[in-house]
């Protein structure tokens, strides 16, 4: 779907792990939201109509902040074969009013290291290669450094 569009914008040999991660040439990666013109609800990814107000849009793309607050988290110790454990996962609330599901990095997989509402910031990295050998770029959140 919209993945084609997103991939086209990325340099050859790199692709984002999800369509709403944008990798602009020479710019900082960012997450893109779709804002409903009727009620202001923001979505990750396209909607045919607004799930909140039912309006048919128009939707406009909004770049999302790279910092947010950790809403909830978990530490996964058992996963699919081949997925390294443990890893820290969470839901991050962004100031634009949308939440993102993500992995948290640069933090110990220990409940004591995690705090509800802690400030986090986005970072990116190559998570794997796809079948054609392109780098798959993923976004992560980590404790904010400022």
């Amino acid at each position, binding site marked *: 779907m919209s*993945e084609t569009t997103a991939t086209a914008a990325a340099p050859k040999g790199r692709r984002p*792990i*999800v369509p709403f991660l944008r990798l602009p040439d020479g710019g900082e990666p960012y997450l893109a939201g779709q804002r409903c013109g009727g009620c202001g*609800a923001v*979505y*990750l990814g396209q909607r045919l109509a607004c*799930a*909140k107000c039912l309006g048919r849009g128009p939707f406009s793309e909004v770049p999302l902040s790279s910092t947010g607050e950790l*809403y*909830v*988290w*978990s*530490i*996964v*110790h*058992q*996963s*699919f074969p081949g*997925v*390294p*454990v*443990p*890893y820290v*996962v*969470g*839901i991050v*609330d962004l100031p634009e009013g*949308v*939440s*993102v*599901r*993500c*992995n948290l990095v640069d933090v110990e997989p220990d*409940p004591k290291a995690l705090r*509800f509402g802690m400030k986090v910031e986005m970072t990116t990295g190559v*998570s*794997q290669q*796809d*079948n054609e050998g392109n780098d*798959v770029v*993923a*976004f992560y959140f980590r404790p904010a450094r400022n």
Partner: protein
Amino acid sequence: MGQGFVAGVSMLKFGRYKDRDVTDLGGEACLMALDDAGLTMRDVQYMAAGCLMQANAMVGQRILHEIGQTGIPVVNVANACATGSTAFREAYLAVASGEADVALAVGVEQMGKAGLLGGGGGGSGIRTEGVVGSGLMPAVFGQAGMEHMRKYGTSQEQFAKVAVKNHKHATRNPLSQYQVETPLEQVLGARMVAYPNTLLMCCPSGDGAAAAVVVSEKKARELGATVRVRASVLTSDPWSDRDLTQPDVNTLTRNAAKLAYERAGLGPEDIDLVELHDCFATAELLHYENLGLCKDGEAGRMIDEGATTHGGRVPVNVSGGLLSKGHPLGATGVANIYEVVTHLRGRAKERQVPDAKVGLAHVIGLGSACTINILSS
């Protein structure tokens, strides 16, 4: 709408049946439920079959190939973990609408040793699990529990007490997949799956089948069936702030509960026993509040005080719940009906809730679906 009565129920012990298949297990459950009702396939005018993992394989019709091909309408239902309870509701609606006097609902599943569910990559061939957060059920329900912890200060220990309670309840249920008590230290000390849920705070996977016969008022009178469906409600997830990112299992349950109590003309204070969707220990506490069994923020205290233990104010999951009885997806919702009906008939033997007159069965399927059935004797 007319009324629906449950004239017969059945449940096969949940566990592993590696030498049998879903038509065989489902067929046996159907015949047992018909025997229980004093009816035969000749009497059945409508059938709804729930089997999630073979949703495209005409399980209902294949069951009829084994137990009687009478040419009746059959629908095959898939609604995630609410598959079986949705099939029950379809059977109820067939009767309540006047289309059928006798309808059969069956739920069946063979999961074998299928492990973790959820966390699919969306078919792109790129792995997102463990990269873009987790879609695995233990983590999703772990996070749902963490939300409760964030709001109300609920502790991991309080969640763990749910597992202690339900495992203990299961020791009185011969149809439960596991029948082993697990003290609190053992639950907390078990291998962590996804914080705060340890292995003993996660439901097992397994096989199973259950069936129920729903009949009209006229037929119920003939058969002497007295358990009435007071409400049979299905909701989907309405828009809520984080639902698309972190499935909101609360709002759709609250909507279903409100509607079910209204239709039944009853309130939470009238409920004598509850079978609710404890796929993970964290989930159970959320649903105490969602179903109105206690006020918001009081679920932790409710488990501490033993209010939901057998003998408490409102016993929850006296069957052992999904945590111990097991959770063969398609069978679960019908098995809940089996449990509630068995108590309302006073046939639950050593786990009988004394004088049970009204019972509530709740199921959640992620994606999301919620069913609530309220039954009374």
